[in-house]
């Protein structure tokens, strides 16, 4: 029965995506749409023009950051559902700073604003980390509660900003492109999309966090604590300190994502009816990536294609945008229930070997060993 764990996570993830899309197709079919035209319109809306591709990469920016944040927390054994609230705080903090310091040299203003956004998220990540380390309060619940606190508290702050910053009661003025992360080069490259420097920040942050987690003593400790806190403590690591550090880094990355939303994508702040969806989507990206930093790029791209493409579906085919979220949830279901996929693979292999004899028995295990390295 060891065979069941011998398949590479990449293969399992790809099949989970396939099954998730299949669920979407079945739902379209049942509700009277043609799934083929549905998915074609999705892909066209996402990848049909350089503008759309630019928007896909733009949408990928916060997903990569939040997914990396989720992964860091997960390495330490935490389930950070609070990414949304952390994004929202980072968004408000960074954008507010630029609004409040109009006229400052952008070469100082923007980096400082990005850092402030990241710190805002970091504080929102620190709180549940500390509550968990100090009092044992489950981060699953505290982060969810903090999402609502951030949502309502943030809305109140936005509505309470000085009048000179506001366009309407619920929305601030729009930043000048020069006071933002926008870069004409990227925008022109992609047919005038909102793609911005945030995308580069996300890629650099992902690389940096990969290095920290896999190649430094700090990452080693966080992983050790997450995998077995008892053994980590035995080996002289502080489970509490590492828990707090991991959650803070996680929040920091989410705050960074918020800064790219405010300073790169929307260029303003407007009150929300729910905590930003990118937090939840980032979690989905990380789960699909199954612990791999490289996987975050693929998964982030896929989910960006789905979300950008989903917006175009109602116009082209009448399929409500929400179908995309159903597909996303289904993909995560199959990732969670990967045992099912592995069972199917075992079954397929057995049928295969009945046909062909036992030629290629150990192929998959080798691939897996490579991954383990």
């Amino acid at each position, binding site marked *: 029965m060891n065979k069941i764990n011998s398949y590479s996570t990449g293969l399992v993830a790809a099949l989970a995506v396939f099954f998730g899309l299949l669920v979407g197709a079945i739902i379209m079919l049942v509700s009277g749409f043609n799934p083929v035209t549905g998915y074609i319109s999705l892909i066209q809306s996402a990848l049909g023009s350089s503008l759309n591709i630019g928007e896909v990469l733009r949408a990928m920016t916060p997903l990569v950051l939040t997914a990396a944040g989720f992964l860091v927390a997960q390495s330490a054994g935490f389930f950070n559902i609070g990414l949304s609230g952390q994004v929202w705080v980072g968004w408000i903090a960074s954008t507010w700073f630029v609004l409040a310091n109009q006229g400052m040299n952008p070469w100082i203003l923007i980096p400082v604003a990005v850092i402030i956004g990241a710190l805002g998220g970091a504080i929102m990540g620190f709180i549940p980390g500390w509550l968990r380390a100090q*009092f044992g309060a489950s981060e699953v619940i505290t982060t969810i509660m903090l999402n609502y606190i951030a949502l309502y508290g943030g809305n109140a702050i936005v509505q309470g900003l000085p009048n000179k910053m506001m366009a309407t009661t619920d929305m601030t003025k729009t930043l000048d492109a020069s006071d933002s992360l926008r870069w004409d080069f990227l925008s022109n490259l992609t047919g005038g999309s909102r793609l911005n420097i945030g995308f580069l920040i996300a890629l650099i942050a992902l690389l940096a966090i990969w290095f920290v987690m896999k190649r430094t003593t700090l990452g080693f400790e966080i992983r050790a604590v997450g995998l077995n806190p008892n053994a980590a403590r035995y080996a002289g690591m502080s489970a509490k300190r590492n828990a707090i550090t991991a959650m803070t880094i996680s929040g920091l990355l989410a705050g960074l994502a918020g800064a790219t939303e405010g300073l790169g994508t929307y260029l303003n702040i407007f009150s929300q009816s729910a905590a930003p969806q990118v937090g939840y989507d980032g979690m989905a990206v990380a789960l699909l990536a199954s612990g791999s930093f490289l996987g975050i790029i693929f998964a982030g791209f896929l989910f960006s294609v789905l979300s950008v493409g989903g917006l175009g579906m109602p116009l082209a085919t009448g399929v*409500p945008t929400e179908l*995309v979220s159903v597909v996303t*949830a289904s993909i*995560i279901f199959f990732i969670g229930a990967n045992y*099912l996929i592995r069972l199917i693979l075992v079954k397929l292999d057995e049928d295969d070997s009945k046909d062909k004899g036992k030629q290629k028995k150990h192929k998959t295990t080798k691939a897996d060993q490579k991954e383990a390295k």
Partner: protein
Amino acid sequence: MSVETILQLVISSTLVYSAPLIFTALGGTFSERAGIVNVGLEGTMIMGAFAGVVFNLSFADQFGHATPWLGLVAGAVIGLIFSLIHAIATVTLRADHIVSGTVMNLMAPALGVYIIKLMYGKGQTSMISQNFGYWNVPGLSKIPFIGPILFTKTSSTAWVAIFIAFVAYWLLYKTRFGLRLRSVGENPQAADTLGLKVYTLRYAGVLISGVLGGIGGALFAQSIAGNFSASTIVGQGYMSMAAMIFGRWNPIGAMGAALFFGFSQSMAIVGAQLPVINQIPAVYLQVAPYVLTILILVIFFAKSKAPAADGINYIKSV
């Protein structure tokens, strides 16, 4: 405002806001007593709300005042079906309980709004016509002072919820089914060696939570929200889960905690009508239930004891 009116207002609105939380928290208790962590209560409530509202809008003409009650049944049925996802994922397919619960919470609003858009052409339904109104408890409402405060213009469903909490306690602690259900949450392997059907019992726990969570959602939609959209249920499922923990995985405790959360939620709504409280900025009342949930977790979580095998998958050897 007289003290009596104030008390009457506070208590009746507390009961209205508590009732959905009580049902859902009881649901969570059954699931976790059987060893399955259920973060998906939020999603279950969303599907329950969806079912209740759609039923109410579709059949109000036929069933009149009985509609909201039948809407609860619709919520229960949809909740049951929806929770089957969680049961299959965690019990049969060995999925992580939190991942599976999160899937439910991502799935429910998307699925609900998708269908609503197809049915009504917009992402938000109209208001329902048949609500759970206020109700005077026959006989008891005539008691001087207590009658008007507790039993006049009150929520009938809240009293049903409180009654069900006691039934749930009896079921869990006094019956064979309850003993067996709790045993698979404490030590599934031991239960297995005694010939108990671990998987069946765990399914039962999750499905009961689906029924009760569905009722909770349908009740919230038909007594408080009045319609269905993506933002009908905003954290009530999570709050119910916190109530269950605060109530130490005990039905009576969960009910008590749910009453407390109902009170703090209702303050954000009726606070404006109350002296002193109406001086507090609305945002503080709005975030109060969530802050309280965290505080309560911090104070009680370390001391309360979850079922020993809560959240741990049981894999039968072959």
